[in-house]
């Protein structure tokens, strides 16, 4: 998919673990893993909002559009 999820990078910058982020956002670790591995087909605005709040970042820091090769 041309939308790339850079959650790993932002989490590493903030030194936040998956468990901690999942707890702060209020989603399961399994769902967070789906998001991190790029398997997710959609993300709710409420989830995106909670992630941005927890990581103190913008949606653009997490989601990136890349042209298909």
């Amino acid at each position, binding site marked *: 998919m041309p939308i790339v999820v850079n959650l790993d990078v932002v989490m590493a910058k903030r030194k936040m673990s998956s468990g901690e982020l999942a707890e702060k956002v209020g989603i399961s670790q399994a769902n*967070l893993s*789906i*998001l991190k591995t790029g*398997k*997710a*087909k*959609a*993300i*709710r605005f409420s989830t995106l909002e909670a992630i941005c709040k927890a990581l103190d970042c913008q949606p653009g820091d997490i989601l990136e559009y890349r042209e298909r090769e």
Partner: protein
Amino acid sequence: MWNDKKSLQLSKLFILIFMVVLVATVVTAPWITKRFINFSRAELMGTERYFLATIYTGFLPAAYLLYSLLRLLQRIEAEQVFIAENVERLRRISWNCFAGAGISIISVAYYFPWIFVAIAAAFMGLIVRVVKNVVAQAVALQDEIDYTV
């Protein structure tokens, strides 16, 4: 009290009854055919082997169709409804109906009333095909919901 579980059990029972009827038809086919020809129309004399060929050939899609229906119900019972395997099952059921229609169409050559069986089977195949398309869309939607975070 009537519920979904009992409804599924009833559907399974009907499938099992149809399976028994199918096997009984195949086993007694020579006798049934002989009786039918002797007590119906004189011009059917000599077509016994064609009737047997139709019954034995038709047994294959009919048996596979009933088996597929049973597998489909077992998956629904296990609460696996909107999955790709069920779409594939429905597709096979549909093609089995069309196969039955094809066999009946060929059989029209020696006994015209087979045309009604052919039309009914083709119509059934068409209905199942439309249901398959609907379920395929439902599977895609379910997939999207499952992967929405």
